[in-house]
């Protein structure tokens, strides 16, 4: 979720009224965003992604104004006087532009605009992939504007450079080029805006140095491009909303395609119908139609009554509203979460623990009774530890395509390796060390919807000078006896264990696990210096026998 540092002075100026830090924070939190810090200069807020209209300080200011009951001026868009010719650009087919007139910029505002553009392209723009935004000094753009596909050899002077370079070079040499080149990796037809003097914008990579916005810029040209029409329109609408709220004049631009044309930003409100009854039923309230209408006004929504139905005008910048239920939340926010009277429903249901958990709990109690310490280790691990260090045959396990660490690349198929590495980390503590874990492993299973399943297992180990096979077997028998199970042992062989000191365990004719003394070579792999006997059981299976 974006964390945004708003300039406090600018925010209060836009709100048009002074508030103490405390009141300001209180109002903002009631509106949903979370205030993280207020300093002399800044107010740092975490904004939820459903409200991109708060990404600009102007949007937050408007919401505060509405909530505090202050009046807002409604600024309208100016009809288009500029045209952009749009050609076919396969890599980024959707485009929208706008013009902002007679702005007075200073150092703060120039930086603010760059930052705003960054926040929007990172969020609804999905890091420029879905939507990219460019701001330009309109007065530096000469003649007709065309959005078209350019080949990699065409040239421009990228922002912050003085030398002309090819688009190919821009991708290879500039910082932004290197960062975002992957978005254009499947095309040689690069999207560009050109005027009489050449390329002045290379979305989604870089603007030209020639048209850069400075403190002296009086009129701004905004370009928005992307791969999703809806998102492109939402972005240009949001920008228009922010600029209008700042009191700037925003002029539409005519987007002229080969066969059609339309003006952007469209900034079209939608209407949504909600019944009073639906709102009250969802919230457990008894609000009248008029009460709801005035509550909605507090959160910036106009509503009209039409019999039992309310017709709510959802402004174009509220892109989060998909369903009447979204209006219900707005009523709740306006009503104030602190004002709801809590009421537990009367219905009684019977609680129940999961059978596997009940069985696990029995096993746990018995292990503890025999003096074992429970440990809990991660499910994620790596194949080196699971198999190679154990001298075990590699099993088909669930591996991660995008691991964040070499330590955790797959899911465990048995618990024992984790218990051995636990012992290895605790050599300084007193022996004998008797530990156990009850936990899930994940095994492949093609019968399952997800081609894998969790299996609940128990593993216990005894390490110490007197850690004998027979002691572990005695513990196992004690465990099984108290669970009402009888075991049969069968001699087995695996390299993980000392030859002749490994047994498979059978209950009711089904193999449920093993018990054995660890091969010294495995002990060496883990850096262990004390003998270890171990037992691992499938307790999910055991439970059913």
């Amino acid at each position, binding site marked *: 979720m974006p964390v945004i540092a708003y300039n406090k002075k600018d925010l209060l100026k836009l709100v048009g009224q002074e508030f103490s830090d405390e009141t300001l924070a209180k109002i903002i939190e009631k509106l949903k965003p979370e205030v993280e810090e207020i300093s002399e200069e800044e107010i740092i807020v975490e904004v939820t*992604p*459903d409200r991109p209209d708060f990404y600009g300080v102007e949007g937050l200011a408007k919401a505060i104004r509405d909530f505090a009951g202050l009046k807002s001026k409604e600024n309208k868009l100016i009809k288009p006087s500029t045209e952009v010719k749009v050609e076919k650009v396969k890599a980024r087919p959707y485009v929208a532009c706008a013009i902002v007139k007679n702005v007075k910029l200073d150092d703060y505002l120039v930086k603010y605009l760059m930052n705003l553009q960054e926040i929007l392209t990172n969020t609804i723009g999905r890091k420029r992939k879905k939507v990219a935004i460019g701001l330009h000094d309109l007065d530096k753009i000469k003649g007709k504007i065309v959005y078209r596909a350019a080949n990699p050899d065409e040239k421009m002077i990228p922002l912050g450079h003085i030398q002309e370079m090819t688009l190919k070079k821009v991708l290879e040499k500039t910082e932004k080029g290197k960062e975002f080149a992957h978005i254009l990796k499947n095309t040689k037809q690069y999207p560009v805006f050109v005027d009489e003097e050449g390329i002045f914008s290379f979305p989604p990579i870089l603007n030209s140095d020639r048209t850069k916005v400075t403190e002296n810029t009086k009129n701004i040209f905004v370009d928005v491009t992307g791969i999703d029409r809806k998102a492109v329109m939402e972005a240009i609408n949001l920008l228009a909303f922010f600029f209008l709220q700042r009191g700037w004049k925003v002029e539409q631009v005519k987007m002229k395609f080969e066969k059609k044309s339309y003006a952007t930003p469209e900034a079209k409100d939608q209407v949504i119908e909600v019944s009073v009854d639906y709102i009250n039923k969802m919230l457990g309230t008894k609000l009248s139609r008029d009460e709801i209408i005035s509550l909605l006004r507090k959160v910036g929504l106009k509503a009209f009554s039409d019999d039992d139905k309310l017709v709510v005008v959802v402004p174009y910048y509220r892109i989060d509203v998909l*369903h009447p239920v979204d209006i219900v939340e707005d009523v709740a926010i306006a009503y104030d979460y602190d004002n709801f009277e809590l009421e537990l429903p009367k219905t009684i249901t019977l609680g129940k623990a999961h059978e596997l958990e009940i069985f696990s709990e029995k096993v746990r109690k018995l292990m*503890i009774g025999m003096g074992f310490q*429970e440990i809990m280790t991660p499910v*994620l691990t790596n194949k080196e530890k699971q198999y190679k260090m154990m001298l075990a045959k590699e099993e088909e396990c669930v591996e991660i*395509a995008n691991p964040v660490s070499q330590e955790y690349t797959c899911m465990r198929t048995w618990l024992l390796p984790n218990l051995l590495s636990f012992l290895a980390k605790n050599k300084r*503590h007193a022996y004998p060390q008797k530990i156990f874990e009850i936990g899930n492993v994940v095994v492949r299973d093609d019968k399952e919807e997800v*081609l894998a399943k969790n299996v609940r297992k128990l593993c216990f180990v005894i390490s110490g000078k007197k850690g004998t096979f027979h002691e572990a077997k005695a513990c196992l028998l004690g465990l099984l006896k108290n669970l009402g199970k009888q075991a049969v042992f069968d001699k087995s062989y695996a390299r993980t264990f000392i030859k002749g000191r490994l047994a498979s365990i059978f209950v009711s004719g089904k193999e449920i696990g093993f018990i054995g003394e660890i091969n010294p070579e495995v002990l060496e792999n883990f850096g262990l210096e004390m003998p270890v006997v171990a037992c691992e059981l499938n307790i999910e299976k055991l439970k059913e026998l």
Partner: protein
Amino acid sequence: MTIKYELTEEGKKFLKEGFPENKLIEIVEKEQEVEISKLKKEIDALNIALKWAKDFGWIRIEKGKVFFLKKTDNPFEKLLKDFSQNKPLSDKELTMLEKRGLIKKVVKGIADELVGKEVAVLHPDLIKTGLWRKVKLIEYDVKEKVEAKVPGKEHPYRQVINYLRQKLIELGFVEHFGPYVELNFWNCDALFMPSDHPARGIHDIFYVKKPKYGKIIDKELWRRVGQTHKNGWKTGSKGWGAWDARLAKRLILRSQTTALSARTLYNLPKTPYKMFTIDKVFRPDVIDAKHFIEFEQCEGIVVDEDLNFRNLLAYLKEITRSLDIEKVRFKPSYFPFTEPSVEGMVWHEELGWIEVLPGGIFRPEVTLPLGIDKPVLAWGIGIGRLAMIKLGIDDIRMLYSDDLGWLRNKELI
């Protein structure tokens, strides 16, 4: 343990005073013929003396008189003397003495060796033989330093988890479990998270290397969910305008237990119903004191007719109360699958208000395609955070502690 013999009281007496039959024969030899009544005055154990003298063939008894026949050595006299001088006797000889009650068997053991000594351990033999009376049990330094015993214990985190489980069962919630390997469909799509939602990228979800795609069991369900994403289906929603069915089939490690809530709603056994789970989820993240790539989530849903927002807040409050937290506040929040959404904050004396209790009412875009036309309250608890507070630790890695010393020494909650 060894078996030994010792003199009986009678044996000791005869050794000292001589055998009664010896006294008898001396008198009878001198007199040759003696009235029994007269002998009564002279000899204490007359019956015993008469028995043995007769057995040895020393005397004859007739009409109240004892007549002298002969005098030979008394075999018991030598044996008793040898025994008292610790000369070795045969088993037969010992049995003779024992039968006459001159010696008796005693169990000799550790106890005897301890007699008269100062001892620390009260040996069971001392109690059995009563010899504890003849030893001095030394006094201990009760203030002496002693190494603490290492008891078998639950993991501290398990204690917190089980405490919470118990409370939720008491509140009427039924425990469920779901798979760690999950379809994107249940983890995201069924929860109305748009296909290009930022939290679905490789930085927020672990993708399974291979096989990449799972199975579609209920095609009709997939169609409903897909339509809901594209145009809202019959839910009254606008939808997101797009849906990537192939992405929905992708296998992942579940990043939220809400995947299980979606599964439970789809297979809902009955209404009203309350489900909870406390189990692992997985997310790519930096690994440090505050973050780990797998952690436990606790979440629950309540399905019933006519549930509302006030009920939701009441449940959240009830859950925190069951954890002994009284001070709770609610603020608006956002989750893609709930509306209205709420964040429950609890008061912590040192940390202030902390967010541990997100919740909401599932969106119609979530419930209707799963076949549920009733309100569903949903909530989760940041259990790792809660456990850290309860256990007084500030490093999340301690929840999966590698430190046996900490586990052994950590007191119970």
